[in-house]
């Protein structure tokens, strides 16, 4: 039978029962690979449940940096009897299946290399404590994998001692469990397998971090002092990470007092209300949620839009609609966020694609929010927020100053005869605001969601209201100049075909483009990073005969925005849609585009369908 051979290029998937302690062993494996200098993209595919249901941990190992999802599994570690048949079916022909041979399993395929290691029996023999017997089964298979994949055991031991830094008592037993698995593998099998991990240089000084932690760190560097939130998968860890960073970085050394306030609200409406209250009162505040929370927050988003109050909101998108797939990923809140709230509202969005961008966009979001006096919604997703990604280390210019926007202090108020909160003095649509408590005589005004004049006085004058709405549009146009423009994949145009994508689709693009090139299909690419769209976005569409918009939602929501905001004709904008809750694969993108474009079509060639 054929056996897959690959060095530093394979997909390994661990099938476990959730709540069984497998997560730490699986992460240990990913860390080992990473520390050998090989880029790895670990993904948790977990159920909306606490204990007892199937969970998978899939790691794509790729020295080439192809870290998007790839279908098919090269090495399956099948530890869950409930999903054994399904897991076996997912292994590619010639691939490997490692399972706990303490228990018999029916294995009907003949094109898969089956490797049995009696993990349960080994642990029963070696350990007394029931908890250790349970947990160390998983650690033992990591040891076995070290032997099977030719991983230097010293590297493994290093990771263990780092992982249990501060809990040295645990190191010994873990190493013992690892050795159990390794020794069995070496004794009973011809190690290593065709798949191997070899030390290489592809990681450099890059770090491994999840998008939510990165975003939270960005909040700290961005000067956020008030966070209000309500728990929801997958955004909970934004607030939790912010709390951990604040405990380390925002506590007064002498007094132990806090330079931050974090409130776990009673629901999402209260969470966004608290963040808005804080921003109204001159502090940088944020909240984080997912789709269902966005629905609840919509009323307040309209208030913040119309009353022009800064706000940073993280939407870590998950499978929708409704309660949807709480533990799966999508990009399906685009229109709900862009047009959040009733009436003529438009919200500003940012689209990070990896954790380093989560960090920077998060910090920048506070500057944008203050400058534009409006909500800034950072559109992350579950894949980015909750998985660890290889990314560039974080950098910060210590000379950088917060942009608090147009705020009048007491001194400035003294020079003004009459302050008007909604007077557009310089034509960019952005007016001057004041914080409560600034001046005994001047600057106070009433913030409200109703129509009002330039002095914030209630009015029902239709002309005044209409002009106010127009000014908000002018402000929105100013946003297009301030928010990040798109990122192009080429110096200059080289094709009549363009691809538009955003967010975590970016991770699948390099591989997709390679696959297209293999079929002689050359395309231009553009990654959208913000809404409102910079002018270059519409220009890109107009400059190409056909444009493929890749989205992880059913209704092509980004395409809707492009059509609506840029008056672009729908017929040239083709949809490539993935919405099964899993990250889009390079193959999906390349196959769909290749099928639409006749093979051999290139610049100036036969038009696509």
């Amino acid at each position, binding site marked *: 039978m054929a056996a897959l051979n690959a060095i530093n290029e394979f997909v390994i998937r661990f099938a476990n029962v959730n709540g069984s302690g497998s997560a730490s062993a699986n992460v240990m494996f990913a860390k080992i690979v*990473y520390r050998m200098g090989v880029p790895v993209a670990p993904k948790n595919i977990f159920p909306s449940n606490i204990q007892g249901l199937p969970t998978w941990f899939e790691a794509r190992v790729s020295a080439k940096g192809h870290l998007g999802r790839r279908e098919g599994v090269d090495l399956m570690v099948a530890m869950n009897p409930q999903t054994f048949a399904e897991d076996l079916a997912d292994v590619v022909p010639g691939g490997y299946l490692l399972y706990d041979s303490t228990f018999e399993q029916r294995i009907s395929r003949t094109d898969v290399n089956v490797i049995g290691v009696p993990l349960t029996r080994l642990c029963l023999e070696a350990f007394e404590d029931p908890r250790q017997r349970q947990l160390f089964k998983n650690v033992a298979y990591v040891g076995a994998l070290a032997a099977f994949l030719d991983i230097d055991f010293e590297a493994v031991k290093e*990771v263990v001692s*780092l*992982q249990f830094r501060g809990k040295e008592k645990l190191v010994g037993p873990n190493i013992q469990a690892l050795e159990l698995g390794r020794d069995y593998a070496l004794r009973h099998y011809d190690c290593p397998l065709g798949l191997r991990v070899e030390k290489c240089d592809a990681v450099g*000084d890059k*770090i*491994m*971090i999840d998008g939510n932690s990165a975003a939270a760190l960005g909040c700290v560097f961005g*000067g956020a*002092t*008030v966070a*209000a939130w309500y728990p929801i998968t997958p955004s909970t860890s934004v607030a939790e990470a912010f709390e951990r*960073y604040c405990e*380390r*970085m925002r506590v*007064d050394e002498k007094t132990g*007092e*806090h*330079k*931050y*306030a974090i*409130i776990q609200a*009673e*629901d999402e*409406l*209260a969470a966004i*209300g*608290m963040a*808005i*209250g*804080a*921003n*109204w*009162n*001159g*502090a940088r*505040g944020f909240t984080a949620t997912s789709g269902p929370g966005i629905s609840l927050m919509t009323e*307040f988003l309209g*208030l913040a839009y119309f009353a022009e109050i800064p706000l940073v909101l993280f939407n870590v998108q998950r499978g929708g609609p409704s309660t949807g797939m709480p533990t799966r990923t999508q990009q399906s809140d685009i229109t709900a966020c862009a047009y959040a709230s009733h009436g003529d509202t438009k919200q500003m969005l940012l689209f990070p694609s990896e954790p380093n961008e989560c960090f920077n966009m998060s910090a920048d979001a506070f500057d944008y929010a203050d400058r534009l006096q409006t909500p800034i919604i950072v559109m992350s997703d579950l894949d980015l927020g909750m998985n660890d990604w290889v990314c560039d*280390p*974080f*950098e*910060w210019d*210590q000379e*950088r100053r917060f942009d608090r926007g147009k705020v009048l202090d007491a001194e400035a108020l003294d020079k003004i005869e009459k302050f008007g909160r909604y007077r557009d003095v310089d034509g960019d649509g952005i007016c001057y605001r*004041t*914080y*409560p*408590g600034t*001046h*005994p*005589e001047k*600057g*106070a005004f*009433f*913030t*409200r*969601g*109703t129509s009002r004049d330039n002095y914030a*006085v209630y009015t029902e004058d239709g002309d005044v209201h209409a002009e106010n709405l127009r000014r908000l549009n002018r402000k929105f146009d100013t946003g297009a100049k301030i928010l990040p423009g798109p990122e192009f994949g080429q110096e200059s145009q080289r094709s009549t075909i363009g691809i538009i994508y955003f967010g975590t689709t970016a991770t699948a693009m390099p591989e997709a483009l390679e696959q297209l090139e293999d079929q002689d299909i050359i395309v231009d690419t553009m990654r959208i990073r913000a809404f409102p769209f910079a002018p270059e976005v519409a220009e890109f569409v107009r400059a190409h005969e056909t444009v493929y918009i890749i989205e992880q939602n059913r209704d092509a929501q980004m395409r809707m925005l492009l059509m609506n905001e840029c008056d672009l004709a729908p017929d040239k904008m083709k949809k490539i849609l993935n919405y099964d809750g899993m990250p889009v694969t390079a193959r999906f993108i390349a196959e769909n585009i290749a099928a639409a474009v006749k093979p051999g079509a290139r610049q100036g060639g036969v038009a696509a369908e």
Partner: protein
Amino acid sequence: MSYIRKPAFQHPNLPKNEIGLTRRDYEGAMSTLCAGCGHDSVSAAIIEACYALGVEPHRLAKLSGIGCSSKTPTYFLSKSHGFNSVHGRMPSIATGASMANTGLKYIGVSGDGDSASIGLGQFAHAIRRQVNMLYIIENNGTYGLTKGQFSATNDRASVGRKGQKNQFDPIDICSLAIQLGASFVARGFSGDKAQLVPLIESGMAHEGFALIDVVSPCVTFNNHLGSTKSFDFVREHNNAVMATDFVPAREQIHAEYDKGEAVDVQLHDDCTIRLRKLDDDYDPTDRASALKYLADHHDRGEVVTGLLHVDTGIENLRDKAQLVDQPLNELVERDLVPSQALLDEVNQRRRW
């Protein structure tokens, strides 16, 4: 309702308070509420209280939800920033704002629709968190701005203007607040300013969440015979259990009372609330007995007013948050941005 504003001119002999402001400096825009509306009396009481306390208007923020009562912050303290937010959600705005700047005073004005229906959840949690604010509910048993529907505080026996019956029992805001652990709970009546003003002063001086449920009749939709929130009904059934005098720190307490007749409650900044029992059975410091009293007397159709419960020993949100002294909204880069060394540490930890 009038449309002619008071002249801006102030008489030179108008008395001034301790910070040199007259009562007129605490006024706001002209009210657009119905002539005779109870809420206008409450606004006047707020003005009176702030003037008497010597509050600096710009160091106070006024917040409200949506409704007739929520319109009132425009009608007092025009030199204070105000925020008329969305229906039932003022407590969350207050919570966030109060964390951003612990140096200001916060007054939230709400109504029975705003707080006892749509806002019931946020109301309860603001109490649970002991947000540092004075929360005034202008309670008329009706949705005035949408023309007279029953609210959740409307009594079962209280019929509508056209004789409609109310099918549901009311929520008693004060009992609910006491049960939830609010540290200052009072009920007032817009028609009794002598009682209301000291309650507002005391509520503002109290450190923590202070609630005043003010029965404030709606002259247009719920002031008719058959309403239990009309001026006539409240006057006839008012059972004031505690008289409250507010004694600022700088003043001497003049009157002496026999032991058992009055209890002095010391507030954190050396102000005193002097409580005189008007009903021997009432104990404002004992939550359980206060709740029982309220239940019993409400059953008899009484409107129990006064400072119903006070407890100055409860940890408020500012205490719980353990914030630095300087308001969060005044902190700058050197206070908030971590050092390069800390960033390097984060990066290094993430290299596993």
